[in-house]
């Protein structure tokens, strides 16, 4: 069972993470990084009708900024997980320092949105229990659910 503690300085400490769960967490950044056109369209939507001149400026100036923001969040999450430790019993632990909380929220959201686009998950899919984890689509649904649980937990902590 995962033991979560909020330390005095606001750092979140996660301990006793079983290997399959830690592996899923380590896949957050990989899941969020996709050059699939549907994912790109979801990450970088136009702010108005394509005919509006703001769209050209958006592509030139705003999208590169958003790209850098999203990448920075993925890198922060990756760094926190790489600093994680594995115990002799196989369980893992890691911490999220307060300045990284928003990066985690962003990276988890990126991963969920990318997985949903890539696997064409519907609202109905997201409301059902995942099936065989050996099926890539079902494994993606497991990832999606775990990332949602973690996101909900972080939001309640930030509140």
């Amino acid at each position: 069972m995962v033991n979560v503690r909020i330390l005095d300085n606001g750092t979140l400490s996660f301990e006793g993470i079983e290997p399959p769960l830690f592996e899923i967490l380590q896949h957050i950044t990989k899941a969020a990084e996709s050059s699939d056109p549907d994912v790109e369209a979801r990450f970088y939507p136009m702010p108005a009708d394509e005919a509006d001149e703001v769209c050209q400026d958006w592509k030139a100036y705003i999208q590169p900024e958003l790209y850098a923001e999203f990448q920075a969040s993925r890198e922060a999450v990756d760094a926190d997980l790489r600093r994680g430790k594995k115990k002799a019993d196989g369980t893992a632990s890691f911490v999220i320092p307060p300045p990284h909380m928003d990066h985690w929220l962003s990276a988890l959201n990126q991963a969920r949105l990318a997985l949903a686009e890539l696997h064409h998950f519907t609202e109905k899919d997201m409301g059902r229990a995942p099936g065989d984890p050996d099926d890539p689509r079902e494994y993606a649904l497991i990832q999606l659910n775990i990332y949602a649980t973690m996101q909900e937990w972080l939001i309640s902590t930030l509140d």
Partner: protein
Amino acid sequence: MSSIATPEFQTKEKHDLSPPWNVVVHNDPVNLMSYVALVFRRVLGFSRTQAEKHMMEVHNSGRSIVWTGEREKAELYVQQLHSHLLLATLEKAPQS
């Protein structure tokens, strides 16, 4: 001898940019309701009650107008909402 082409200038009518502009947030099935409400509070300065009201409107009606005002500020809000991966657009508000 080639003639010098007369440059064409397009002048944007002032009223095209004049207020009011709506910032509209659209529903998507992936973003968590709690996350959308949190973003509304952070970006738009909504109270918890306001944030939840607009979040429910997005969820139930597919969209919610979350802010109305001048174009430049509306663009900034849309950018901030996009940075939180919410689907947001600008729309010219109907003139009353």
